[in-house]
């Protein structure tokens, strides 16, 4: 199986779907001539031409709303946000229009749009560019949201997202774009709403999504080598729909859970997962559920402190040891 980057996996997934379905069109800032602000769409303009790969002006409310309108007539736009932090200027379109028109029309409309881009901190760009709005999106019925953490998942999820008939918001991480991993050449799809056990273990469940999955895997190695604790790492992958079964089964096996995310703690994804675990697996818990999120302040610029603000392996180890 060839090893490719997360970036290329996304590109390959989009390429497959552009070839398969002529209604798929990629629209975003710098996606065409500039080859993508993060080179995710590199080469697509040359391959598919300007009708399919469209440079948009810096006008998120306009072009994302336009994509939503086009999707109501059956176009399948894949909209790139240079950062998910920029979603807020298009929030009315993304939350009010994309999520609600199906409902308000009594099911007459569906909105097969994908909105994707990086949603992560840790890159020294300050508070305005470091938002992680997956919890906000997930709390909006009508929307789906996924956050792949590996190249394999990135390709499988972007393809499924494009084929989905509801709006799917795909969160990525600039920190993961250069990561490599094995990705099969033959076609595969990963259903939304399916978590993945990234490391099997027996003693504690580290449950995470996005870049935090990597930190959990590092933490699991430290726990194994230094503390003889065999941690299981559950990658949520899809936040809505949520694979409750995989998460619950893991906790029932290990009886301990640490929830890790770059979201802020208040009303973060972990809050929902923690509620779900205590409700469905209360009798299986041998210790309180632990949560680690970003430290509850706007993303700080100062690089050494920014590193501390986001959950890293050593902090995860510490939290795990508190309940093991």
């Amino acid at each position, binding site marked *: 199986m060839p090893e490719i980057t997360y970036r290329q996996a996304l590109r390959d997934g989009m390429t497959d779907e552009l070839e398969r379905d002529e209604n798929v069109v990629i629209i975003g800032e710098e996606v065409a001539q500039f080859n993508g602000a993060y080179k995710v769409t590199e080469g697509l303009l040359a391959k598919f031409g300007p009708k399919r790969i469209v440079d948009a002006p810096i006008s998120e409310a*306009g072009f994302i709303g336009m994509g939503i309108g086009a999707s109501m*007539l059956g176009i399948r736009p894949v909209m790139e946000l240079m950062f998910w932090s920029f979603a807020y200027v298009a929030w009315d379109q993304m939350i009010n229009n994309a999520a609600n028109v*199906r409902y308000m*029309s009594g099911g007459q409309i569906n909105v097969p749009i994908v909105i994707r881009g990086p949603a992560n901190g840790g890159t020294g760009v300050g508070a305005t560019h470091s938002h992680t709005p997956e919890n906000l999106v997930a709390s909006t019925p009508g929307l789906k949201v996924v956050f792949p953490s590996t190249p394999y998942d990135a390709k499988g999820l972007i393809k499924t997202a494009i084929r989905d008939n509801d709006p799917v918001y795909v969160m990525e991480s600039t920190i993961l774009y250069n990561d490599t991993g094995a990705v099969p050449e033959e076609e595969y799809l990963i259903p*939304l709403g399916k978590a993945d056990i990234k490391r099997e273990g027996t003693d504690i469940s580290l449950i995470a999504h996005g870049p935090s999955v990597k930190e959990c895997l590092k933490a699991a190695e430290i726990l194994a080598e230094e503390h003889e604790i065999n941690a299981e790492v559950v990658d949520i992958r899809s936040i809505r729909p949520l694979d409750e079964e995989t998460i619950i089964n893991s906790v029932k096996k290990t009886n301990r859970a640490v929830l890790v995310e770059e979201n802020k703690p208040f009303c973060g994804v972990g809050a929902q997962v923690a509620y779900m675990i205590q409700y469905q697996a209360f009798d299986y818990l041998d210790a309180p559920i632990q949560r680690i999120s970003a430290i509850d302040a706007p993303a700080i610029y100062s690089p050494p402190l920014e590193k501390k603000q986001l959950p890293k392996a050593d902090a995860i180890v510490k939290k795990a040891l508190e309940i093991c």
Partner: protein
Amino acid sequence: MTTTATPTKRRRKKPEKANLAKEAELASNRDLSDEDKIGFYDSMIRIRRFEERSLRVYQQGKIAGFLHLYIGQESIAVGSVSVMQENDHIITAYRDHGHGLAVGMTMNECMAELQGKATGCSKGKGGSMHYFATDKRFWGGHGIVGGQTPLGAGLAYALKYKGIKGCALCFLGDGAINQGAYHESLNLAALWDLPVVFVIENNGYSMGTSQERSSVHPKGGLAARAEAYNTNWANLNGESIFEIREGLTEAMNLAREKSKPSVVEIHTYRYQGHSVSDAQHKKYRTKEEIEDYRKNHDPVNLYRDYLIDSGILTAEKAKEIDNAAKTEADQSAKFAEESPFPAEEEILKDVYWEEDNPDQKVSEGRIFFND
């Protein structure tokens, strides 16, 4: 720095009095049959009587929330829809009853929607502000001021992408023209040559704030802002359905044939408040102003008078049409009243396409979180 010599705070300019007999001879109207012309009257009076009836239903406490009435503006929806062709699409804001009825939605489904009944056009899930009839290429009914304008551009984008010679008619009020989404839509429409016509229904007040207090604009009015986007624009007089048809035909042909956007501003007036709950509407305008529009500029009455004066319709026949509209409105109120509310299970339906079409699922996992 250049400065403008003229003041930027301008009052809304009243257009010249309409001359329906003259405007009936414009290119888009001269081939209309008497039957067509009577049909426009029928459509307009049906909207008016439906809305008057809905106001009574509202006052009886059977309609929740808002009720934004269109009374006074009927010529715009009817005139515009009358020049739509088979590949044209339409979208509007929350003052949407007129557009819904004009595209052919029934009074029954519209009245039932107001009352939140299962027989409503959106199964009681949308309400007054959110009418939809996609089979009639009517894409809403949108509640957020200006929020529908990018969607309108998107309908046009889809037509262009698919190589279909059609046009998207996107309505907005004068209160929407300061929203960023509208300006972004204008830029995209011009930049990408989208076949969209933005129709500003200028009734003079964004809720309770007069145009003078809300919007600076060039001499030509609100539509003239389109100059900045190299986009064609026009001002039309809402008193005259014929002028509306002529102006819209021109703009829509430009969209269909040349894939160029336009902005059309139509001078109009609403007699009721912004919404029914806005009972103090006389605070921001005078009684005399409302009376002047009712008496001298009403698009439905002026049109009826034109039909009678030109021998197309007798006064008796006009009354008959009017009475039929009242009866239909009464019956729709009865239909809505007798219709059931949606079943409680309906709350969780029509949220996700996939949940409604379980045979075609691509997702696993849990979508709803109710405990």
